[in-house]
């Protein structure tokens, strides 16, 4: 099946957040098709200020992101049976790859135990590990530019 690995669009957006006593705390980033990475991290705990950064990535980086997404096979999954977002929190994962566009929502996942006891442990596990990709976004946005 052609997942448009090296051609076609690639876009990835991930959001995790909740509204609690410290306000709307969230982390969100976007890998855009033109190479722009936008990253936002808002934690009101102790009045931290919002971090919002954007940098441009090279095609080499996007290609690697595509590979990671493709290897995870998340595009084959569905969020039908995943826990719905709730008061504790919300996650969103939106990916465009080739001619497929997914937009999944689910609640926060505290641990693998939550994954294993869900109605779709296989799919949710893939989601859980893939969104570690937020570490990639954090890494890229942690570099300072002048």
């Amino acid at each position, binding site marked *: 099946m052609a997942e448009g690995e090296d051609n076609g669009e690639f876009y990835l957006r991930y959001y995790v957040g909740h509204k609690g006593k410290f306000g709307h705390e969230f982390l969100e980033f976007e890998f855009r098709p033109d190479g722009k990475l936008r990253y936002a991290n808002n934690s009101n705990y102790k009045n931290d200020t919002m971090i919002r950064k954007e940098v441009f*990535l*090279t095609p*080499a980086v996007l*290609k690697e992101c595509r590979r990671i997404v493709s290897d995870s096979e998340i595009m084959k999954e569905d969020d039908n049976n995943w826990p719905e977002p709730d008061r504790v929190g919300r996650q969103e994962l939106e990916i465009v790859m080739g001619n497929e566009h997914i937009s999944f929502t689910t609640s926060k996942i505290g641990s693998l135990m939550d994954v294993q006891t869900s109605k779709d442990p296989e799919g949710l596990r893939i989601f859980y590990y893939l969104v570690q990709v937020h570490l990639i976004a954090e890494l890229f946005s942690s570099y300072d530019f002048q």
Partner: protein
Amino acid sequence: MAHAEVETVDFEPDDDDLMDEDVGDGSPSRAGTIPRLKSAITGGGSSSTPKKTKGRGFRDEAAAEADRSARMSARFDSLDSEGGPGPERSIEGWIVLVTGVHEEAQEDDLQNAFGEFGEIKNLHLNLDRRTGFVKGYALIEFENFEEAQKTISEMDGTELLTQTITVDWAFSKGSFKRRNIRRRSPRGPRSRSPRRRF
């Protein structure tokens, strides 16, 4: 399909102090095609082939969507550069991306392979949390442009621990043309002699 309870989280757009004033951040308006993306990616024009869609996110309420677009249209700190392709320098140096890294590679392997080009200021070798193995890419930071450029020229397409690696810049001054992606080989058609900024 259970549609009624899709939104139990209360996101009120007016509660958001995220919304900075300059909404005209360059976020392109949404394409009118269905389905729309939550935040604005390249508006109309680019590939408009209909997409197969999947997921609850397409059934979201307007409030969540408004909140989302507010988050993404606010002002972001960005580079003060004239844009366009060409590598970008971080404050401390120049960062190259290595992909195709063998999953059992260690930092020492990279240090040995790349350290001859110059002093490595920073090295990130991410692990796959699920497998414990290397995720396949590494970021290496050199102080000088020449060191990074030489690394790219000499190491791209070579073998490391029996696997072929690619080596390229990680950050760019601006967006790259979409055409380049389609016919891109590891070396790419675009120029590798960017302006240096110190």
